[in-house]
């Protein structure tokens, strides 16, 4: 770097204050700035800005899609819950209906059975009464005959049928 020209020029001190080089520096600076500006505005900045915007849009899109999917999932869950509740209600209704039906059938059968039992009981009672009555009659007859035979044996010829009968009846009731 230590060249003769440098030595001659650097003698006063700062090369920054060597005004003879100013036009050169300023000219090349302006060229440089214009070139950078053109490269940036024509190529680099639109590309980078576009890429950033694309990414921003893509992320926004994805978020929106995720929100939509979430909403749909929530709707599906809601529908599922509604269907479940409906099914449960239906099942309960069917169970209640069946129960009521069976109850009416049971009631009807019970009533029928009761009626039959009552009828049979009445019939049996009637028969018993009949048997009892016929038995009583037989007993009275036997008593009469026995009384008549006894009276005949003690006092022959003194049998009074009517008196005998009333006496036996009174005795039987007594």
């Amino acid at each position, binding site marked *: *770097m*230590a*060249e003769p*020209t*440098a*030595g001659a*020029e*650097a003698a006063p*001190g*700062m*090369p*920054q*204050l*060597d005004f*003879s*080089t*100013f*036009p*050169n*520096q*300023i*000219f*090349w*600076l*302006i*060229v*440089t*700035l214009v*070139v*950078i*500006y053109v*490269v*940036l*505005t024509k*190529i*680099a*900045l639109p*590309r*980078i*800005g*576009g*890429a*950033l915007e*694309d*990414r921003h849009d*893509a992320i926004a899109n994805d978020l929106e899609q995720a929100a939509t999917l979430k909403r749909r999932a929530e709707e599906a869950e809601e529908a599922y819950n509604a269907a479940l509740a409906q099914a449960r209600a239906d099942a309960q209704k069917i169970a209640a209906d069946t129960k009521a039906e069976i109850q009416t059938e049971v009631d009807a059968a019970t009533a029928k059975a009761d009626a039959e039992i009552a009828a049979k009981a009445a019939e049996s009672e009637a028969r018993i009464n009949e048997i009892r009555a016929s038995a009583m009659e037989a007993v009275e007859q036997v008593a009469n005959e026995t009384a008549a035979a006894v009276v005949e044996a003690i006092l022959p010829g003194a049998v009074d049928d009517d008196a005998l009968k009333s006496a036996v009846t009174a005795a039987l009731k007594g």
Partner: protein
Amino acid sequence: MAESDGGSGLNIHPMDQFVVKPLFGGDVVHWYTITNVTLWMALTVAAVSAVLVLGSRKRALVPSYSQSVAELLYGFVHKMVQDVAGKEGVKYFPYIMTLFTFILGANLLALIPTSFSTTSHIAVTAVLALAVFITVTAIGFIKHGAGFLGLFWVSSAPLALRPVLAVIELISYFVRPLSHSIRLAGNLMAGHAVLKVFAGFAGVLGVGAVVPIAAIAAIYGLEVLVAVIQAYVFTILTCVYLNDALHPSH
């Protein structure tokens, strides 16, 4: 970078690295001469194009490593413009991106040993700063007419103080391009000169050169930071000035 004439005594020329020289012979630097300025600015263009154009080549939805870098730079400057200068400032984003990428590229390329640092030259930074100053002032007057002068009339201050403040504001406004340009050039120049001085020490110290070499490594790290931070500072100040032009009311 270390050079000393035969090792006899200190012979350091820390400013030689900043000399503008014609690349293809000749001593006269005309405005059109192809110089080391041309070379390193062309390399800056190439570097910026490589990062931003090749990086964004694929426009992938899921970015590759190089595309991420390009998008990071884009997003960083875009957010800066929007945050500092507001929504109306986004219109000027390509200009600010041009400034930022040029300064960042030039600053980082200047850290290559034996390179030429274009942004250490007042001529370069002054043009950048003046371009910002003139553009921003023009935008202010075009958008707000005479209302732009409200920038200098601090309506929140007591009435008696306002003329005084107006003078101060006016001076600070016109000092802007000066501080804007010297901050960048000064930082770059000082850092590179210091590196060169230490390199000169290393050249004459023999075994003791370990110390200046370690210092060079440390300062080099610092210079990488400075290169990025100065590019950022220049850009964010541009955004601040733009914001003043777009919203001049205090």
